[in-house]
């Protein structure tokens, strides 16, 4: 039983890590990973929404009529997202300015609806919470790694600190939109070749 619980949690960290294995939620993964703090902030916001929505969907799974479940899930997710938006606006304003429109867009992030539909609507509260937390942490890790690679190579900084020597010529292609696709593609390739073994 305990093993199963641990597996619910850890599958989001490696076996089904979004967005590298579970290729969902790509829009913010590409858009906000210009700098490591943006990626980390987005990841934390998504983790919060994912955890809360999974718990609530799981709690209400026997109450919500099947035919209107998607609409109900979206109402739940949207509520949490607006809550996150208000909190970042009130306490982390620079992050809010950086993430901008991508915070409200968490509502339509496929991971969240995907986990609600595929997992939380069929499982009890604790496994759903672990699933949400694991997926969220996995997403945060992925985004931070992707953003770190782009920021370090693309602007020579990491979380805003200078890490490359002053003689380093930033590979600014990576902080542009096409750089996000190339970087994500390379990581997906590496993950796939690792997974084959």
């Amino acid at each position, binding site marked *: 039983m305990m093993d199963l619980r641990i597996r619910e949690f850890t599958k989001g960290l490696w076996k089904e890590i979004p967005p590298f294995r579970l290729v969902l939620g790509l829009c913010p993964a590409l858009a906000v990973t210009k700098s490591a703090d943006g990626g980390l902030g987005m990841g934390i916001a998504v983790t919060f929404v994912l955890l809360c929505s999974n718990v609530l969907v799981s709690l209400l799974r026997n109450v*919500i009529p099947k035919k*209107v479940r998607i609409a109900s899930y979206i109402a739940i997710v949207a509520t949490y997202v607006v809550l996150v938006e*208000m909190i970042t606006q*009130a306490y982390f304003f620079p992050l809010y300015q950086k993430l901008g429109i991508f915070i409200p867009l968490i509502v339509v992030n496929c991971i969240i609806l995907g986990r609600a539909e595929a997992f939380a609507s069929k499982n009890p509260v604790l496994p759903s919470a672990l699933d949400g937390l694991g997926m969220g942490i996995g997403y945060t890790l992925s985004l931070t790694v992707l953003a770190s690679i782009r920021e370090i190579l693309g602007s020579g900084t990491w979380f805003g600190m200078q890490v490359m020597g002053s003689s380093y010529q930033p590979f600014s292609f990576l902080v542009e939109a096409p750089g996000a696709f190339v970087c994500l593609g390379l990581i997906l390739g590496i993950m796939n070749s690792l997974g084959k073994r």
Partner: protein
Amino acid sequence: MNENLKMIGMLTLFCGLCGFLLAGARTLTRECIEDQFLRYVEGPAIKKVLEETTNDPVSDRMQIQDSTGGATLFLGKRGDSLVSIACGSKAAGFGGDICIIVGYNIAMDTITGMAVTSCSETPGIGLRITEEAFTGLFKGKSVNDIMKIRADGGVIDGISGATVSSRGACAAVISNLLRYQERKQRVLKGK
């Protein structure tokens, strides 16, 4: 029929509860958000429109009552003497309200600067009203000038392709100007 009613009822209940929750959260965070907005968005804009002041206009602000209700004025001082005031206003643009801050030199009755604090204009088109090339046009103009785009007989060069946004920004400046004299008198009396 019964099933339909149940679905409608549940969805209504959900949305109602969510709305209620969010309204509560909004009340709790509103003050904090306004503070942050003042610090990160309006603050820099105010400092930009009130150049050459030696004080901090954001902390030297005063509430006044005028014919339109309450307003917040930001006072720019050089040494101890009051040289300029700034206040906000808004008007409808292309994609929603355009909120601006206008700074005035009270001795010369001229505009010392204009800055857009929030708007939802189209990026690349209407959003160009936030750029210095446009906001700089208001700088140095007299309060008696006609703050309309040239097509409407004013003195401001509108942005081509963004007439609605340019008009909106001008309308916000005009509504600001309308109250300038009254506000100036109140500030001077209050001193």
